[in-house]
């Protein structure tokens, strides 16, 4: 495996993005990889010049530019016959918000780029403001009373570009995640991976509970784990049990939902609606194998 994130990095304890990079390093193995990281927690985690806690060649880009900078790197690698996998490693702010136009354009051009969004549902690097990935009901420093708007369906947006591969990955289901990362690394064209990454600092949650929080989000149906090929073939990778108890636990273990008083019952209708859409698109009315 390639150690992508090395010791000495400055990520918070319990950072979901750190876990995601551990998993990613296992997926990379010996593949030649170059990272493009826009402004985000990932841009500061490696420490300051001339030291870097990153184990792969990396180019830091401006906030909105990752997919376009990666385009340049990838085009030159291909024209020189190099197998380098160019990977964007971007937070939700750089993906859902400021980088959306650039991301959409690179997807439309089907650039040979893997784009990974580690989604911690908040502008973490600036101290915890809302993004369009922040779920309704979550308090942030710019929505102190709780955000009113619902989170964007980023996977749906990317799938609508009919890219070769788009998938969501649960950090609590490492085997499935590893398989998807390897698949995405080896495919050509534009690939998109979405990872829900707990942020103890922004979520006001216990650092040791991050992976469990993701498991609860998956079990309850709040975070669907799926893969979509060519924007058409949708497959549910981990079947939720839609447990209300899991949803209640997910909310109660994070202080960010406390102020708004958001309850599991408030969330259920939109979760059910989203799953009805996913079932229709997967062409599977009967649920797949249940998650263990």
């Amino acid at each position, binding site marked *: 495996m390639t150690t992508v994130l090395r010791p000495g990095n400055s990520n918070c304890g319990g950072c979901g993005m750190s876990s995601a990079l551990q998993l990613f390093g296992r997926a990379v193995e010996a593949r*030649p990889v*170059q990272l*493009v990281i826009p402004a985000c927690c990932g*841009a*500061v985690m*490696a*420490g*300051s*010049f001339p030291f*870097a806690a*990153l*184990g*792969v*060649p*990396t*180019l*830091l*880009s*401006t906030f*909105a*530019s990752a*997919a*376009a*900078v*990666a*385009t*340049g*790197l*990838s*085009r*030159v*690698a291909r*024209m*020189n016959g190099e197998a*380098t996998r160019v990977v964007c490693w971007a937070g939700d702010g750089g993906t859902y918000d400021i980088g959306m*136009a*650039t991301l*959409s*354009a690179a997807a439309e*051009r089907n650039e040979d780029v893997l784009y990974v969004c580690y989604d911690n549902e908040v502008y973490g690097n600036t101290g915890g403001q809302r993004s369009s990935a922040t779920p309704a009901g979550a308090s942030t420093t710019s929505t102190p009373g709780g955000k009113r708007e619902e989170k964007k369906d980023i996977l749906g947006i990317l799938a609508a570009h009919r890219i070769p591969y788009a998938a969501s990955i649960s950090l609590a289901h490492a085997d499935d995640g590893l398989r998807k990362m390897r698949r995405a690394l080896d495919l050509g064209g534009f690939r998109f991976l979405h990872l829900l990454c707990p942020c103890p600092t922004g979520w006001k949650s216990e650092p040791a509970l991050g992976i469990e929080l993701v498991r609860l989000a998956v079990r309850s149906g709040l975070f669907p784990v799926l893969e979509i090929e060519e924007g058409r073939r949708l497959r549910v990778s981990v079947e939720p049990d839609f447990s209300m108890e899991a949803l209640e636990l997910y909310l109660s273990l994070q202080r960010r939902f406390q102020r708004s008083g958001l309850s599991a019952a408030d969330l259920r209708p939109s979760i059910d609606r989203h799953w009805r859409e996913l079932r229709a698109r997967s062409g599977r009315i009967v649920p797949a194998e249940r998650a263990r």
Partner: protein
Amino acid sequence: MSVELLSGNHAAATAAALAARANRAGRGFASGLYPITPSTECMELLCAQDLPKGAVVRVESEHSAMAVCIGAAAAGARTFTATSANGLVYMAENAITAALLRLPVVMVVANRTLGPPWNVWADHGDSLLLRDSGWVQLYCADNQEVLDSVLCAYRLAEDPRVLLPVMVCQEGFVLSHTVAQTEVPDQALVDRFLPPLELASRLRGEARVMGGIDTPHVTEAHRAQHHQAMARARAVYGEVQEAFRAAFGRRPADPVVAHRVEDAETVVVSMGTIASTVDRVVDAARARGGRVGSLRVRMLRPFPSADLERLLRQATRVAVIDRDISLGLGGVLWGEARATAPRGALVQGYVVGLGGGDPRPAHVEEILGDLSRREAPGDPVILEAGA
């Protein structure tokens, strides 16, 4: 060599394509391109080129156009883009990054005034907004100079002693859309003038972070190095001129282009195509026995202070004409050039030709008249030239 009828935009694209092909034995060429009036025809011609080992990426914004250049340059390719006005300003963030990462990107700017209110015509306000961005800036006065400057720009940008992006500026429509006879060098000669780029600092297979965090003392050191590279760019440009002359038989223009200043008491300093008009007025004044000369600042960054000081040595009255305005100060060129005039010389700033206002000989004569009547310099004089 062939002689072709080319617009400024097509001269720029032709030069970029020659430079692109010259790197086919290297790591190739890549360009992020996005249209904007009056630069569009440059990207259109480049999109129609057959470039071996070349990638022309039609992106969704100027910001991404420069981002593609950054990625490709970091991977060791030769890079190019072209834009204008709002496109340049929209791109500014990444243009600054290209400079701070010391990537030898070359960009052609068709100078146009900023808006809204919308106006597609020429002034230098757009590229001057990026004066302090860390790019070398060259301002052209004719189409041949545009083509030659793009080729020189690569040689200068890629010199290991320089490693800076270079912006070649041409006034929108005045040059970008005016067709003129232009000498186009053969590819074989360009191949010799622009050997394959080998960027020592490019991203390779080993773990290395480009563009990570700089602490204050590191930023202080990096800026000092960047500034020193600018100073070297002035000296290296002299070598580029000689190499260009040896390769193509023409010597590209100096950082400051002098016209009849040897014994001139009155000197008009300007930039871009206005200097061509000034030169005509100077010739007419000389015919009447006046001791008048003209200086055209072609290289704004690095600023050729020593050249200007040398060429203004004998001047007692200096008019600086700006096709731009730093609102609240006056002309940008005036703000910079006035310190290079000899002690005791009267230096007066004039602003004319904003937003495509067309400065004609009568306006230059008006400026010379005003300058000769002055007992002391005053606030910048803003003239309306109209279309």
